[in-house]
């Protein structure tokens, strides 16, 4: 019972019920209109025929008198499908004709009987039957009354048939609608049940679950698809979160242990001035920790999209130029040359600080890893094609193995296992988050894929820009 109630509450059932009601009303109106119109038309034709006949009979009476009239009526009455003829006395008693009986008082007045009336007629088996007819009464000067009428049984039958057909059709329609309701509604319910089943699993924590799609591309599929896309995003965020908390535990334990050791050493240190040094190291160590936390916070804020509010038109060319200028001396200090090829005046919608930070991270990486390589060149290039602004930072350092490209974008992932270079392992993660926030893309490739040990790394940032 409750299942039926649920079914009745589905949108499909409600809509189809509404359509059924509307359609039935239209059908009823149409049928009544058509039958009414055809009835009127038929009556008009009948009246015209009767009028003609009455005038003919009058003419016969004038020309041939009563006997001629009787003959003529007899002849007419014998024809197949004949009209109704009655000759009655002045008081209304039937003298002759092909009618068995009439309502009393019908013949009192001359002229049209305004409404179709009932009469009894002879059938082939000499039984009497009540039919409906339309008739005109003619008063003769000798006091006799002549009724000329036409049986309306056929049109009446037709009308009844149409009405019957209508009732049957409506019945069939109703039944059909009920079946369709049931099928559609149950189908919809089934799919929704499947969807809620999947979402219950998801709520229970299984974020890898996806809502089922039938592949038909209908509205349920579209809904499922967008919900699935949403789930994908949530899963990714959740995964990121999990990864971060895992990695925080792993990666922050090391510096914290170091910090603690140093503090312990400082505490037990002799008064030879090494205490100050140890404390300074402790401060440097905690600064690095703070830096890591800041980067983590920044990534999660950027990923959560809260910085998207601070987007405005920024001069990308300017930011690239600023970053090159900022990092160039540091590169030169490490015997690296920075070559910049910047396309001026490229404006995009973005966050200046975040793009600056991202580029800064790339420059910092390039300087850090290309130091001491055979080709001491860092190339920063900027191009624009269509509605894409592309910034590439290419170095000739050792590069990254191809299968690690995705890996290094993850938080805390550093190829340099020994941790000999300073860094948080968050630089590229932040760059990726920033690019995602700008609806751009980030790709890593080798600068010189064929080079033996100095393949180098080219980082390509693609920003959506206004087409010019």
């Amino acid at each position, binding site marked *: 019972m409750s299942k039926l109630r649920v079914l009745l509450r589905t949108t499909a059932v409600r809509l189809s019920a509404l359509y059924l009601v509307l359609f039935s009303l239209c059908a009823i109106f149409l049928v009544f209109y058509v039958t009414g119109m055809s009835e009127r038309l038929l009556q008009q034709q009948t009246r015209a025929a009767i009028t003609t006949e009455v005038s003919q009979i009058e003419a016969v009476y004038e020309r041939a008198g009563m006997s001629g009239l009787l003959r003529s009526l007899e002849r007419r009455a014998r024809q197949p499908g004949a009209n109704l003829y009655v000759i009655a006395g002045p008081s209304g008693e039937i003298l002759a004709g092909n009618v068995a009986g009439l309502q009393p008082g019908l013949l009192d007045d001359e002229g049209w009987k305004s409404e179709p009336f009932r009469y009894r007629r002879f059938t082939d088996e000499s039984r009497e039957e009540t039919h409906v007819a339309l008739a005109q009464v003619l008063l003769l000067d000798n006091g006799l009354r002549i009724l000329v009428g036409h049986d309306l049984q056929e049109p009446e039958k037709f009308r009844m048939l149409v009405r019957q057909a209508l009732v049957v059709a409506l019945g069939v329609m109703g039944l059909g609608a009920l079946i369709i309701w049931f099928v559609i509604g149950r189908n919809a319910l089934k799919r929704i049940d499947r969807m809620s089943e999947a979402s219950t699993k998801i709520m229970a924590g299984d974020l890898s679950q996806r809502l089922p799609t039938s592949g038909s591309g209908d509205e349920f599929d579209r809904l499922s698809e967008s919900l699935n896309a949403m789930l994908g995003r949530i899963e990714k965020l959740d995964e990121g979160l999990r990864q971060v908390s895992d990695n925080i535990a792993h990666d922050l334990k090391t510096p914290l242990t170091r910090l603690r050791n140093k503090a312990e050493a400082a505490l037990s240190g002799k008064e030879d001035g090494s205490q100050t040094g140890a404390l*300074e190291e402790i*401060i440097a160590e905690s*600064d690095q920790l*703070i*830096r890591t936390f*800041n*980067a983590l*916070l*920044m990534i999660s*804020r950027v990923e959560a999209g*809260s*910085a998207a*509010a*601070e987007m405005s038109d920024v001069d990308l060319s300017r930011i690239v130029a*600023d970053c090159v*200028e*900022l*990092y160039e*001396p*540091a590169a*030169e*200090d490490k015997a690296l040359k920075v070559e910049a090829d910047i396309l001026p005046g490229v404006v995009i919608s973005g*966050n*200046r*600080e*975040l793009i*600056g*930070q991202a580029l*800064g*991270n790339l420059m*910092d990486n390039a*300087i*850090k890893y290309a130091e001491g390589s055979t080709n001491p060149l860092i190339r920063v290039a900027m191009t624009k094609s269509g509605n894409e602004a592309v910034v590439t930072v290419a170095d000739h350092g050792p590069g990254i193995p191809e299968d690690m490209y995705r890996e290094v974008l993850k938080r805390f992932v550093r190829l340099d296992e020994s941790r000999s270079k*300073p*860094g948080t392992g968050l*630089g590229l993660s932040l760059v990726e988050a920033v690019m995602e926030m700008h609806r751009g893309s980030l790709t890593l490739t080798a600068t010189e894929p064929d080079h033996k040990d100095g393949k180098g790394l080219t980082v390509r940032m693609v920003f959506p820009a206004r087409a010019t």
Partner: protein
Amino acid sequence: MVTRMKILIVEDDLEAAAYLAKAFREAGIVSDHASDGESGLFMASENAYDVLVVDRMLPRRDGLSLISELRRRDIHTPVLILSALGQVDDRVTGLRAGGDDYLPKPYAFNELLARVEVLGRRKGAPEQDMVYRVGDLELDRLAHSVRRQGKEIPLQPREFRLLEYLMKNAGQVVTRTMLLENVWDYHFDPQTNVIDVHVSRLRSKIEKDFDTPLLRTVRGAGYMIKDDRTET
């Protein structure tokens, strides 16, 4: 330094406030303390402070609303906002509310001290001076030229701005972050010592052919340009 600087610390963490008060006292700065937004607003309105150090999250009235209300009352004491919210947009909202500087927690005290000193001396800063002088070094802001002992020193535009900022705050410590913010107008973490390299290039240009050093590194804090001979 004849007059001592007097500041107000509005901070609800009493331990942190006590630490700050002690550290400022050691640096020669007198401080008052308010532990919530309302009393902070009252004290800042009633007394003349050189700088207000305001935590962003405060009971009874948050830091940003305190600043807006002060500005509405036409009190323009420089304000430094301290906040655990260190993101770009937080800084923007903080400065928009009427703050003059923004320092995300956790911070090094030296960073805070340097910023407070720069803010506190702002009133007397030679903003209108067209020529900055430190010892025998002269920077002409209009002509964009730098001379030492009358000898022209050619500088790159960025080096000029770097020197300009250092000389504007002559005798005061400016930190690396302050340089990145004020000379490059970026607030991000450059990861490495990029600023140091710029400063050392500038230093070699203005000191290479001369005897007295002017630009010195303040250990654990930043840089300061100062003529030692004028110090008594």
